[in-house]
């Protein structure tokens, strides 16, 4: 689904991604872990064509990321979801559905269904600037669920959420993961949530991939936090 071969990204003299190679298979829940400033968000931005690669090859479902059609069936949730304030919760989710090609009654049904799944049906007619941060993040998740995305990219999804919302988001990810066709790519520095929900991972530090592979094989019985700290500290 995702294939990165020796990719690098420079901002002036600063090397944000340094010769990164990794692959994510279809149907996997993949975690890209690393401390702040490791280059995780830059990697996500290159995946979405928001920044250009300095070197290397990055493919999304076999297509170069510079090709906009590589993003068909891709849903993206940024760390802090925000959209034009005048939209209602319903209107915002509906807009995302439209942009993914949904129309008419299907669009309406899928929008209502997505709002129901994340528990924001009751506030569906409220404007985005009148709802809480947690409700806004849930609306963001609904924008992912409204269409039949095959790849879902979550950038720091647990950041700023209360424990209840974290639990609900984990359930949603688990549900998505149970669909063997969907691939979930999670970019996070919060390790406690990753161990249970991810199949594979890569750890990024200072722009370089330290390890990459199946979670169970890499950890080999030890906890993710201990493994991560030891690895990053050694570097």
């Amino acid at each position, binding site marked *: 689904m995702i294939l990165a071969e020796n990719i690098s990204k420079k901002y002036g003299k600063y090397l944000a991604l340094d010769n990164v190679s990794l692959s994510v298979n279809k149907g996997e829940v993949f975690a890209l872990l690393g401390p702040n400033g490791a280059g995780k968000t830059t990697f996500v931005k290159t995946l979405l064509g*928001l920044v250009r690669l300095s070197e290397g090859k990055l493919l999304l479902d076999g297509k170069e990321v510079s090709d906009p059609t590589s*993003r068909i069936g891709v849903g*993206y949730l940024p760390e802090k979801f925000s959209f034009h304030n*005048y939209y209602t919760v319903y209107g915002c989710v509906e807009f995302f559905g439209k942009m993914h090609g949904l129309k008419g009654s299907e669009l309406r049904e899928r929008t209502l269904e997505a709002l129901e799944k994340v528990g924001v049906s009751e506030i569906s007619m409220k404007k985005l600037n009148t709802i809480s941060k947690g409700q806004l993040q849930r609306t963001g998740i609904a924008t992912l669920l409204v269409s039949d995305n095959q790849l879902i990219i979550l950038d720091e999804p647990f950041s700023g959420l209360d424990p209840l919302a974290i639990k609900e988001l984990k359930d949603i990810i688990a549900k998505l993961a149970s669909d063997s066709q969907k691939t979930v790519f999670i970019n996070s520095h919060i390790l406690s949530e990753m161990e249970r929900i991810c199949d594979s991972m890569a750890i990024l530090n200072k722009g370089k991939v330290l390890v990459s592979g199946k979670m169970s094989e890499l950890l080999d019985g030890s906890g993710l936090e201990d493994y991560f700290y030891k690895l990053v500290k050694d570097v």
Partner: protein
Amino acid sequence: MNFGIIKILTENTIAKEYRNKALLFIFIFTLGVITLATMLLDFINKNFNIADGAQIGDKGFFVMFLAISSISTVTSIILGLNCIKSDFESSSISQILAFPIKRIEFLIARVFGAWIIALVFFLFSIGYTVLMFSLTSSGTFINGSLFLATISMGANMLTLITLSAFISLYIPKLFSFIILMIFRTYTAVTGSYLMSLGPDKLFSDLSIFKIINLFLYFFFPRMQEMDSYSKVFLEGADFDVSSLAFFGHYFVAFIILFSLFGLFFSRKEM
């Protein structure tokens, strides 16, 4: 080109921009000016025993058209400055560009959406003026000349929106507004001067400033000349071969400007 996506984003632009408070204020202000002008015209007609009321009405309408055109210049700049910048301000730009769309499609939708609002503003103001003037004087206001003048004004509004949107990517809004107003005046003055020189003197006594002015004159849409066309059309001039050549140049220069905008935007990192 994915026209379905462009349509959805254009609707999104319109929904986003018509709420612009500065635009609403200018709109109300314009309606107020038109109403006052009508009252003044009515007062003159009734109290000064003017023999040819229709001529006064036509002259008054001409002045109002110029006033609305000037106001539309300001609204076009405001809309252009906001149509893409607001996506950055609301942090929604990365989410929109993460959809399977080309950046040029995004630009077309934003500029076109802003242009539709500017046109509606302009046409509504002209329509309101026609209505009010028809009630108070006997001039002929709706004709082919008005149609040609409106097309000329529409072309200038599109250029201004494109240029404003382009500049807003790199410079804060207030400074962009000031720069654009200065640039608009500067190109108007230098354009008129170069136009008056004639072909034999156009390339003589070349200085750095003259080279820059000539570059703008040949490679940038000539907004001042388009304004002049809108005035002469309104005064009854016909569309002829020289107008066709001018409109052709304007169109090509606009395409160059938009392509340049597209090129810079496609290279911009979010």
